């Protein structure tokens, strides 16, 4: 079987390479590199610029940024992906039902969502995390729940638009049940914007994890995560910009890769683009 054209375009290939590469690092870096490479301090080389000894330089405690960024990948990627998946699992059915049926149900659900949206997602995650206590699983839960209202809002809007299109009415007049209408006629047609939104959410989830970590509720130092590294770099930006650029670059590359892959995926799923 040959791949659809959309998955062999340059954009798709770059996206796929980036995402695949980062996944490989996230999976294999902790297996290959001894864990203490990320936490070993070299006080004589604090805030050292990139050199042959430290490829990406060092941070304020003289820890090697190259190893930290590699070893931090797993934490960041796992937390972000799981959190976004979780927000899809909760937000998708919620938004679909709300947008499809409309009326009173929609009103009630959306007022709840609006209330949750009124809190900054990070503050919200922080509260959840504070109640549940700091742990890896709770961080995922907190970010996942915090990101749900936004996604539910987008899905609801799309579902509402699609639900009143003629082909949904046509399927209804052909005897389709509500369940069938939602799954077969509404869901596939709202996927394009949802995919794009999810790739953006992933970037924000990586940063949200950083925020939680900074406040002592996410990843616990001295363990490495990209978000934590960006937070830590804040005080040294003028003297040692690489401390922010290295983890920032890692986040940017992941988001870029996911975005391109998401676009390609969206095109591949849409029969009209063939």
């Amino acid at each position, binding site marked *: 079987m040959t791949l659809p054209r959309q998955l062999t375009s340059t954009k798709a290939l770059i996206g796929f390479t980036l995402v695949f590469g980062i996944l490989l690092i996230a999976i294999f870096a902790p297996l290959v590199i001894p864990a203490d490479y990320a936490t070993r301090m070299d006080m004589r080389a604090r805030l050292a610029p990139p050199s042959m000894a430290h490829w990406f330089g060092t941070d304020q405690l003289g820890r090697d940024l190259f190893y930290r960024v590699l070893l931090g990948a797993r934490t960041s990627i796992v937390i972000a992906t799981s959190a976004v998946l979780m927000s899809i699992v909760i937000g998708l059915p919620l938004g679909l039902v709300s947008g499809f049926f409309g009326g009173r149900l929609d009103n009630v659900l959306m007022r709840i969502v609006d209330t949750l949206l009124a809190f900054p997602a990070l503050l919200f995650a922080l509260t959840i995390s504070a109640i549940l206590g700091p742990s890896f699983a709770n961080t995922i839960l907190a970010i996942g729940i915090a990101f749900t209202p936004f996604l539910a809002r987008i899905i609801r809007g799309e579902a509402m638009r699609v639900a009143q299109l003629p082909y949904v009415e046509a399927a209804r007049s*052909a*005897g389709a049940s509500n369940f069938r209408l939602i799954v077969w006629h509404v869901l596939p047609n709202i996927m394009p914007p949802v995919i794009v939104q999810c790739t953006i959410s992933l970037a924000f989830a990586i940063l949200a994890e950083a925020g939680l970590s900074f406040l002592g509720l996410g990843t616990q130092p001295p363990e490495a995560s990209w978000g934590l590294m960006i937070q830590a770099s804040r005080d040294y930006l003028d003297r040692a910009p690489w401390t922010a650029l290295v983890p920032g670059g890692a986040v940017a590359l992941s988001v870029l890769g996911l975005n391109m892959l998401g676009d390609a995926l969206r095109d591949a799923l849409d029969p*009209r683009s063939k």
Partner: protein
Amino acid sequence: MIDTAVAEASQPVVAVEGLRVEFDTDDGVVVGVKDVSFRVAPGETVCVVGESGSGKSVTSLSLMRLVEFGGGRITEGRLLLTRPDDTVLDLVEADTGVMQNIRGNEIGMIFQEPMTSLNPVFTIERQLTDGLRVHRGLDAAAARKRAVELMQEVRIPEPEKRLSQYPHELSGGMRQRVMIAMAMACRPRLLIADEPTTALDVTIQAEILALIDRLKTENGMAVLFITHDMAVVAQMADRVVVMFRGDIVEQGPVEEIFAAPKEEYTRALLAAVPRLGDMRGKAAPEPLRIPGAAEVAIKPAKTLPAESGPLLEVRNLVTQFPIRGGIFQRHVANVHAVENVSFTLARGETMALVGESGCGKSTCGRSILRLIEPTSGEVKLEGRDLSELDDAALRAARRNMQMVFQDPFASLNPFMRLKAQVAEPLTNFGLARGAKADELIAELFERVELPLEFMRRFPHELSGGQRQRVAIARALAVNPKLIVADEAVSALDVSVQAQVLNLMMSLQEERGLSYLFISHDMAVVERVSHRVGVMYLGRLVELGSRAQVFENPQHDYTQKLMSAVPIADPRRRNKGDGRPFRPLPSPIHPVGYKPPPGEFVEVEPGHFVLKLDD
């Protein structure tokens, strides 16, 4: 009308010579139009007519050099415009500044969609005076004065009041008048009208056509009129340019084109157009003749004997939509969309509901299927009252009544293969699955004359006509007794429309189907229906057999509607100018409003006319 000989002798306002426009697409270069040449003389209307994809709009956009904004390139040819100082300019060579000065000043343009071609956030005054201030350098007061004159010229009542209004406060017909006023603002030498009446109702269309014609005569302006509608061509044109797939097929004076078309394509195009009055004296609907295509032998569809009782009975159907307002979303008023509609439909019969937009004909069709919940009234299908059914029973009952929708581009799910879409009702009603379903679907595809390999395709790969065939196949899959066809052919090109109408008629004859045919097109309705109901403001104002309604219209509104229909015959022009603009009364009434009780008078057996006592 200007004598053609005179028109040719004088200097043309615009001469298109050997125009070729190409578009760069993902699949390489696509030629939009090739080797197009024609000229438009002062005081002359040249109609460019063709079906979708014929390149007629590309031609008009090229003249404004707007085609470049749509990704097109003019690769060959000249566009010679005679300037006010009698010099001739090749628009292809003109630079941006010159073009900006010409657009709206020397060439005015009217677009198809009056609803979207005005900017919703500016007042009418702002939009109307913009061109005057830019091109004529008028100050605010002078521009406003001129704007009022222009509004009077296009016969807009209360011009001062209208100037301060926003586009959404005006009806479609009014907006198109504003568009015309804008195009006329700087007294252009050439007016390009690109399908200016396609989105409008027939009575409004008649007014707008008359208006354009009057402005042309008064100002000696040249008009380039783009349309797909042969009837409008017959009413408007001095000369006609027929286009097909980017090529000019034929051009000549309008009488010649209609009386003795030289080319096969022109003949086919003309034959496919149903003309109002063609069916005079005929007892039953008759398929259209399509030259070029193999002559389809369809026996005239006949009504089945009515002994088994009517298929569909509609009694006192009322559908109202609440309007809510205020902070507490109080119920402040109702839209009376369908008001006390009653009729019956026999087996094997086509009943047409005809009327203008907003008259409630579509809502009526949807209320019958309960796709919209009617407010009150009774709908019986084979003696069974649909309004009492619960959700499950209603779904089961829909097996006998299917719907074909207007827009074939929107009524098919873009993410589903056509086979799955036609299988939809079979699956939903648990009628067939697996190999048996495949077989049934293949038969349906054959019946609607679609190649079997289309089963695996997606909707976007098909043309409009092909999609509508799929929609018909889907409706037929469960062998329904009633098909509600809501403007089912309105979005199609005439030749395709004729084919789909013929298909529908032959299916009716073969399967004894009943159609509720909802349409705004009087000529099509005359062609296909046994009985006709005319709707106006939610009410059925006249009901009778086709012959009764079309040959002896009794209600004022029916007569008005009939006289407004353009006829595809240049010898029968029905332009009455100076039709006063009368806005349609609003169907919105406060809560508790009781519509006047109307009474149906039977003027002859089976022919009813609504008389309101006021």
